[in-house]
């Protein structure tokens, strides 16, 4: 299973990778992108099974990344990991086609609960 992690923070990408392992997802092929634009290009080139993306990023935000992806006809499962989880943002994310929105700081339990149905 191939998972693309898009976050402009290398530190946060490492935390997401560590949390995926702690949540029990050990046999993943992980690829990284440092902003939404790079995420979009990588997603089209690599066709991952899941995209985990930050919301606030330079170049292209996570929301623009998702909208561009859906606009291109791609239906790759997509979810946000972000510091902001207001009801308005959750609605916006869902409307754009996101499967989940996990707020930072997160735990391995949250990752397991949200991602197990998708990665199983």
């Amino acid at each position, binding site marked *: 299973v191939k998972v693309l992690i898009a976050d402009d*923070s290398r530190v946060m990408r*490492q*935390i997401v990778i560590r949390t995926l392992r702690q949540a029990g997802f050990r046999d993943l092929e992980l690829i990284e992108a440092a902003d939404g634009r790079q995420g979009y290009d990588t997603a089209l080139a690599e066709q991952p099974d899941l995209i985990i993306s930050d919301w606030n990023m330079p170049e292209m935000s996570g929301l623009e990344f998702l909208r561009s992806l859906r606009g291109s006809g791609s239906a790759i499962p997509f979810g946000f990991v972000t*510091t902001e*989880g207001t009801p308005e943002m959750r609605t916006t994310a869902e409307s754009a086609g996101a499967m989940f929105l996990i707020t930072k700081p997160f735990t391995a339990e949250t990752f397991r609960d949200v991602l197990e149905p998708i990665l199983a």
Partner: protein
Amino acid sequence: MGTYTAPTDQDLWQITEQLWESYLDPEGGRPLLIGPPSATGLDISAAVSVTGSWNGHVVLECSMAASRAAAAAMLGIGAEDVAEADIADALGEMANVIGGGVKSLLPGECALSLPHVVAAAGHRRIWPAVTEVCRLHGSWGDEPVTVSVLEQREELERGRRE
């Protein structure tokens, strides 16, 4: 703006403690403790700005030693292996997470900026035209850590008029 309950010192503790428990001290062996107010040793700061129905900044300040330890803990590597870029990245992400928590307590719709990090030993960062809403004085392994929420003063004045 109408009246709202401003974030308190206790809210800030709760948000910051959650960050520490999740990313910096998941084993519980090196928690962030309440520390004395420190005017010195706060050599690096990371801030996110909040813009919208509430305007201001959420600012994290700490010593260089604390920032290096934070980056090491978040990356899961030794402090000696931490690069300068990792320190700015880690501090920025910490400010971002705390800012997101503070934003969830604010009224109306606001946007959070990308974090900006400034390392300037011996020089405290100056924030003009703001009022401090709440502040946390922490100590992490004897190193000073502070977090403050600063509201743009014009907003307070407008709030009083409405």
